[in-house]
């Protein structure tokens, strides 16, 4: 039998590690997102960029006027706007990643049956998971660059280390998107998605976005610091304010664990769901 191109391509991966789960073609899944994006509404995309900027103007300049400078930890005094700007960047990285990996993924998994179609081809579940998450990260990257382009000229990024906030935002988005997709794979009804919002809002309000965590008693601080958004804010704030310490690597490690765990669960779940 004459081998078709599709077969020859699939055979090349035969026998390699994880060949049942990964065909090395997550970029085909990513390409699909690009094509769909070209004809989608730009409004939704724009909103991801506008939201943190609006928060910054409203709180940073509105509330900031009554606050003056604030201790960003280790005695470093910065303007209120410069204090919350990194938190807003971290939060928007989280929100964008969560939105993409929950609502969008749920729709593709259950309504449009997009993943059914993908997994009937020679793609594997890890290709689908990585491709979908990569798209969320591309968006996150563009938002992060856009946000930095707005706040840096306003003098809200005092340190050159702040440039690293952009890749940090992508790392954070990667963590949230991986875990978000893993959680979504367990949902069967739209209503269950509400649980995600319930979890995210208090995390946003109490993770030290708008004031230092030192206002809380020690044991509450400890709990909050362990939450992913607080980890994200600590990391990005340290970078934009130039408070560099080795301890920042702990935050990086935190997100690497989230990524690995999320991808592992997502791949297993997609495999279980579509290979019943």
């Amino acid at each position, binding site marked *: 039998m004459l081998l078709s191109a*599709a077969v020859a391509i699939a055979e090349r991966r*035969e026998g390699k590690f994880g060949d049942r789960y990964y*065909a090395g*073609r997550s970029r085909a899944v990513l390409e699909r997102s690009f*094509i769909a994006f070209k004809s989608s509404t730009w409004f939704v995309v724009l909103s991801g960029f506008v939201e943190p900027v609006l928060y910054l103007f409203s709180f940073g300049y509105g509330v900031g006027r009554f606050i003056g400078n604030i201790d960003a930890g280790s005695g470093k005094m910065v303007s209120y706007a410069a204090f919350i700007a990194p938190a807003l960047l971290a939060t928007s990285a989280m929100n964008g990643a969560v939105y993409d990996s929950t609502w969008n993924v749920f729709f593709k998994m259950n309504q449009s049956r997009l993943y059914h179609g993908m997994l009937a*081809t020679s793609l594997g579940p890890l290709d689908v998971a990585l491709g979908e998450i990569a798209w969320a990260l591309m968006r996150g990257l563009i938002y992060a660059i856009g946000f930095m382009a707005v706040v840096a000229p306003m003098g809200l990024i005092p340190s050159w280390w702040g440039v690293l906030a952009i890749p940090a935002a992508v790392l954070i988005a990667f963590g949230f998107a991986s875990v978000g997709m893993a959680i979504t794979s367990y949902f069967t009804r739209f209503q269950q998605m509400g649980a995600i919002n319930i979890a995210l809002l208090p995390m946003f309000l109490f993770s030290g976005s708008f004031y230092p965590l030192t206002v809380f008693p020690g044991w509450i601080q400890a709990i909050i610091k362990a939450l992913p958004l607080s980890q994200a804010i600590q990391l990005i704030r340290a970078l934009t304010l130039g408070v560099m310490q080795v301890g920042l690597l702990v935050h990086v490690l935190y997100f690497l664990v989230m990524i690995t765990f999320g991808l592992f669960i997502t791949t297993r779940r997609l495999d279980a769901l579509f290979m019943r």
Partner: protein
Amino acid sequence: MSENLIEVQGLTKKYGEFVAVNGIDFHVRKSESFGFLGPNGAGKSTTMRILAATSRRTSGEVSVLGRDPEIHGPQIRAHLGVVPQEGNLDVQLTVTENLYIYGRYFGLSSKFIRSKIDDLLEFAQLEEKRDTKVDALSGGMKRRLIIARSLVSDPDILILDEPTTGLDPQARHILWDRLFRLKEDGMTLLITTHYMDEAEQLCDRLIVMDKGSIMSEGSPAELIREHSTREVLEVRFGSEQNVRMAPAMEKFCDRIEVLPDRILLYTEDAEAVLEEIVGAGHSPKTSLVRRSSLEDVFLRLTGRSLID
């Protein structure tokens, strides 16, 4: 002379306690059009999904193109074109984009896919819809697009799960014509259906399934010869009367089936039987003489209709 592309032995699939497929054996030869006929829930789709390397079996041996789909999933799926029962076109994309990206999932180059798109659009009779979003297509068009999409990777086997369910008669005939062309070109087709006319039109050989088991196997003509008579006489005495008239009808032929709305008399010469019945003083309200079909085979094998 003909090689077996698919070999299945003792295939069983359980979902918890429920046995969806119960130890079935069959094989499919190259360039054969092979059908799975049976009512909903017979285990046809489950069997197809196992062959298509998108479901794991509970036990038994399965070989597709000489390999186990459970171990070599991606490699086997690269050989297959799959047309699922439930549509899964990419609703955010246009007709052409759907064909294009599906080829990309198989790792095919953009250039290669683009060189195929015109032919695929022509095959699906969708040339004028090439830049239309798939949401705006009719049910028949969508089904044709899914078939065209499944061909983008030049598959060796095309798997069609209930290909014409939900389509109007005209759309069904267009689709059958397309599938017939593929068959003529030597494509190996696997078709599940609960329409006996579809099975008769498209399948060289088929298995009749019910409740996870194979009831019989053969070509449509063989099955009819084996399990039914040449002709069937359908008589209607009115809904209340059919059951009452049944014993009287039995002596006119080899076998009868009493359905709620009619009595079926199985015989080699239905016209003659009808004359005898009328000659004996019975007066059915309506009568119909026809050839036996796979529906009769199924009724004989299971005591039930295909579509209930």
